[in-house]
């Protein structure tokens, strides 16, 4: 296990630098002058432009700019917005909402998705199984933003069960967005756990367990579930990272003051530094989640450790 862990950690280093470099390079090669964007319609005096260029190291070569940027990121400095406020401060403000939303969505998808998937898998070919397959297919097909509006119209306006938008009622305001955010992964988890369970139920060790005369509850509950949930657990871990990044659309629709909404606002007001700063942070979160999944996979499935 130790060697496996070390190998995964070592592989993480190039991915970390590669991904941050990629974001940096993609932004760098784009046409457009950040200082012109900063000044707006009225051109700045050449001295001011030069001073700003020096202050933000825009006169340095490309690789040096990246080195400065990544050093700053390590120190928790993700740049500043147009008003001179550090992006890290903005993120600290917005992060709690996003984390709450992600956790709530996560809980919803685990409870509902897993239950639906396992029950469907056990009753393969029965009515409930078909129902789960059709329902998940429908949910997978409806884009998140369409689903969000439908939820607003039905549960917010028509039925009045939940607040339509905003964050004034705390957890209650998060319920509807959390369901919408969870929907896609929920459908995916249901399908994944069903397929995995169905495949494992045909395995030799299940037949052995049945032949020993164990009750079907014990065969499924103890022997099969444990093995068939491995891919689901690893998917869940990546998904927690993805939920935080995927909240952009949901937070925009429901007007929640989270990180995703901040990214959206920054693209509207053309504040490139904020977009890149938060994107870098989200990619790091996603990367760490991926790393944890690899480690978790090694813990759960010993075969993985001996590649």
């Amino acid at each position, binding site marked *: 296990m130790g060697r496996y862990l070390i190998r995964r950690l070592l592989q993480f280093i190039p991915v970390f630098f590669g991904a941050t470099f990629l974001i940096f390079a993609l932004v760098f090669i784009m046409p457009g002058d950040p200082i012109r964007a900063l000044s707006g319609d009225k051109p700045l005096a050449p001295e001011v432009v030069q001073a700003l260029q020096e202050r933000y190291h825009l006169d340095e070569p490309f690789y040096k700019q990246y080195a400065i940027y990544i050093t700053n990121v390590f120190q928790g400095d993700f740049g500043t917005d147009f008003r001179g406020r550090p992006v890290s401060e903005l993120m600290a403000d917005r992060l709690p909402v996003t984390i709450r939303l992600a956790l709530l969505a996560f809980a919803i998808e685990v409870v509902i998705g897993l239950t639906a998937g396992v029950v469907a898998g056990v009753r393969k070919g029965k009515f409930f199984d078909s129902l789960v397959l059709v329902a998940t297919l429908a949910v997978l*097909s409806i884009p998140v933003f369409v689903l969000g509006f439908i939820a607003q119209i039905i549960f917010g306006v028509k039925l009045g069960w939940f607040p339509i938008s905003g964050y004034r009622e705390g957890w209650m305001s998060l319920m509807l967005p959390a369901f919408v955010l969870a929907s896609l992964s929920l459908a995916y988890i249901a399908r994944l756990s069903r397929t995995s369970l169905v495949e494992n139920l045909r395995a030799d060790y299940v037949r052995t367990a049945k032949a020993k005369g164990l009750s079907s509850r014990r065969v499924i509950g103890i022997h099969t579930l444990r093995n068939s949930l491995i891919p689901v657990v690893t998917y869940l871990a990546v998904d927690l990272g993805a939920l935080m990044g995927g909240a952009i659309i949901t937070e925009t629709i429901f007007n929640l003051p989270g990180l995703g909404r901040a990214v959206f606002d920054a693209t509207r007001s053309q504040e490139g530094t904020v*977009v890149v700063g938060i994107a870098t942070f989200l990619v790091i979160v996603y990367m760490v989640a991926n790393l944890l999944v690899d480690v978790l996979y090694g813990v759960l499935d010993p075969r993985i450790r001996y590649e």
Partner: protein
Amino acid sequence: MSDKQDTPRGDSDPSGEEPVLYADTVGEYVPSDVVGRQAATAEHDDQSAFRQSPVLDEVVGDLPRTASLWGDAWRQLRRRPVFIISAILIVILVIISLFPGLFATHDPRDCNLIDSLLLPSSEHWFGTDLQGCDYYSRTLYGTRVSISIGIIVVFFVTIIAVIGGSVAGYYGGATDSIIGRITDIWFVIPTILGGIVILSLIRSRGIATVSLVLIVLGWATLLRLVRSSVLAVKANDYVDAARAMGASNPRIIMRHILPNAIAPVIIVSAIYVGVIIAAEAALSFLGVGLQLPAISWGLMISVAQQRIITAPHLLLFPGAFLSVTVFSFILMGDALRDALDPKLR
């Protein structure tokens, strides 16, 4: 036969859509289904000696006439309602996107402000938008953007993935490590997030720009799939046999490995068209995708969001079209998976 095996013969077509086999009796290349049919007939003749057994007769009689994966899959697909439904939907959507004028009742850009925000009626089937444009015609024209971006992006992504994935999987070693590490880096950048970062910096964005960005960001998952599929096929004995006969590496990849490794790629590509269409709509909805005056479902929904209570039809129709389009491609992927992946049968 072995010396002829290596004669280059139009190997430039890597897709191998119409697999062509060498038939030694005929002395020229014939489409595989012809060979397959001949082989099947020959088999029947050989077995005629055993025809006395009625049980065996039954078994032999039930044998599929061609045994190839594709022939088998096609026979399965033709009978499956899931495939038929999704194929019909996709054909309709493609026809609409090619010739929207055939079905539209109005010019989508010929708008009359007096008709602003009308509800659906016999004149305007889907009502009108804020500018008084016929919403039915606009929704139909929106098909064009979605279908073309979906197909363009998936076409190029598949090409990148097939080339990169088969090179990495087949050659292994340092080549595999380099391609693998690059893929790892791309893999941790979510498509929507990366798309927002890049597209928000581009001032004028058309179909080409959005497609390019989605291609640049979207190939990693599919490449991993091709690589693992190629690795699995590479272990087969017939690959060793081809190598022992002196076949070149590109020939082995294109003739022997890819035709057998491509099935999962086709399944995921079909689903991926739907995923890309949803991604384009999401980006346009967020205001970093296509821009007005382009006609795109994402843009229409973005405009509609301010009026979801007073004019819900503005949201409903493009939303429904978008969902049905994504649905048909996911369904097609499901149908292909059932037919092509024998493990899940």
